């Protein structure tokens, strides 16, 4: 999930208004920006959509890392298109968050100052070309698990952004699986790279769904509001069940000694990721946290003169247009 551990707010509005609001959600109605909503719903959503948007934007960095080194022109074009889509996803989501009354600059500022988070997964490095396959296959695969149900989320602009995003994600996962298939079926060295990529990305991918349900403190309210549709553990199980056969097909081994088919639950038993590592990465101590944030800070400050220049030009051109119109009258 791109939005992990989103802190939900306690609602303390007029009980009658709250009940009417909840009834709308229970009836499957969409909440639109101008509708009345509890302050806590608004704040939680800004946090969740913002975190999701930041993840799409920061998520471009590990993949962008390989654009200039893609092994063929076709792979380069594919990766460029994929990374461009992620920029688009970030923009759809920022716009959805802005309908709740927060500004784009404010969201950006909160990311850059570390007050808002992005998904822990993007703090891991992409060391080899096989990692690009693993990212599409596993990371986008895990994101899809979470994003498909969010198309039915209660907040209209968020749900509509999710619909657009989901249409594009399938390409992301398939190009990744296609890439890693080529590696897994290649030379012994390539196959070893594919296995190594799976080894390194497996547990961080499982962490994407957030902590185990028994430790997930913010879920109940969010689920009542339908801004969270499934529990973390439900989605994680679904992801494992979907991914294990895909790894088998590649002849790769999921790095988990406890992985075992369980007939009773009709799914795989698997080891939990190391949650201490997860909390540590969220705190800023992952392998790439510093790099990722400083890349975003640099892009933002290096681009400032350009953004300001375009705005100054637009204002001058508009003033000239108005003056010419007045002169003509």
């Amino acid at each position: 999930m791109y939005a992990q551990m989103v802190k939900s707010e306690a609602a303390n509005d007029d009980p009658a208004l709250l009940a009417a609001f909840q009834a709308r959600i229970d009836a499957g109605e969409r909440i639109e920006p101008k509708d009345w909503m509890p302050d806590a719903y608004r704040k939680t959503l800004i946090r969740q959509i913002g975190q999701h948007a930041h993840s799409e934007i920061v998520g471009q960095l590990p993949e962008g890392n390989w654009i200039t080194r893609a092994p063929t022109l076709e792979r380069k074009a594919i990766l460029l298109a994929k990374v461009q889509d992620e920029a688009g996803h970030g923009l759809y989501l920022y716009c959805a968050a802005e309908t709740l009354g927060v500004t784009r600059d404010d969201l950006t500022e909160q990311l850059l100052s570390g007050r808002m988070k992005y998904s822990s997964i993007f703090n891991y490095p992409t060391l080899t070309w096989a990692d690009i396959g693993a990212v599409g296959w596993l990371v986008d695969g895990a994101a899809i698990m979470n994003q498909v149900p969010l198309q039915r989320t209660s907040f209209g602009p968020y749900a509509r952004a999710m619909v657009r995003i989901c249409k594009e994600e399938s390409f992301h996962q398939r190009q990744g699986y296609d890439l890693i298939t080529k590696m897994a079926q290649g030379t012994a060295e390539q196959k070893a790279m594919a296995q190594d990529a799976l080894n390194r990305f497996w547990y961080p991918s499982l962490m994407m769904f957030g902590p185990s349900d028994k430790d997930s403190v913010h879920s109940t309210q969010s689920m009542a509001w339908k801004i969270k549709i499934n529990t973390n553990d439900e989605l994680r199980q679904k992801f494992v069940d979907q991914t294990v056969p895909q790894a088998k097909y590649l002849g790769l081994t999921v790095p988990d000694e406890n992985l075992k088919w369980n007939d009773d639950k009709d799914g795989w038993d698997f080891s939990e990721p190391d949650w201490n590592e997860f909390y540590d990465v969220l705190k800023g101590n992952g392998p790439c946290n510093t790099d990722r944030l400083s890349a975003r800070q640099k892009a933002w400050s290096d681009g400032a003169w350009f953004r300001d220049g375009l705005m100054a030009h637009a204002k001058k051109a508009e003033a000239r247009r108005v003056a010419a119109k007045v002169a003509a009258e």
Partner: protein
Amino acid sequence: MSNEWPLWEVFIRGQHGLNHRHVGSLHAPDAELAMRHARDVYTRRNEGVSIWVVPSAQITASAPSDKGPLFEPANDKVYRHPTFYDIPDEVGHM
């Protein structure tokens, strides 16, 4: 931080001659760049044959509280729908 680009609403006409439809919004300094951004953000897969961009500040929207007065009067005017009228089978399709 105060110099944020203004917000624009983006409308796109799809392939099949339908109306322009609202697809989302974006920030841009002026109309020309709003158009270019709209093309990059909203039509990467042939989604459209025509784009409109409109400054969001120029849109007047109805308020949620106006829902009743605006739309409820239509509820009791069932005679505006063709299904209100029974046409004898003998007459054929109408």
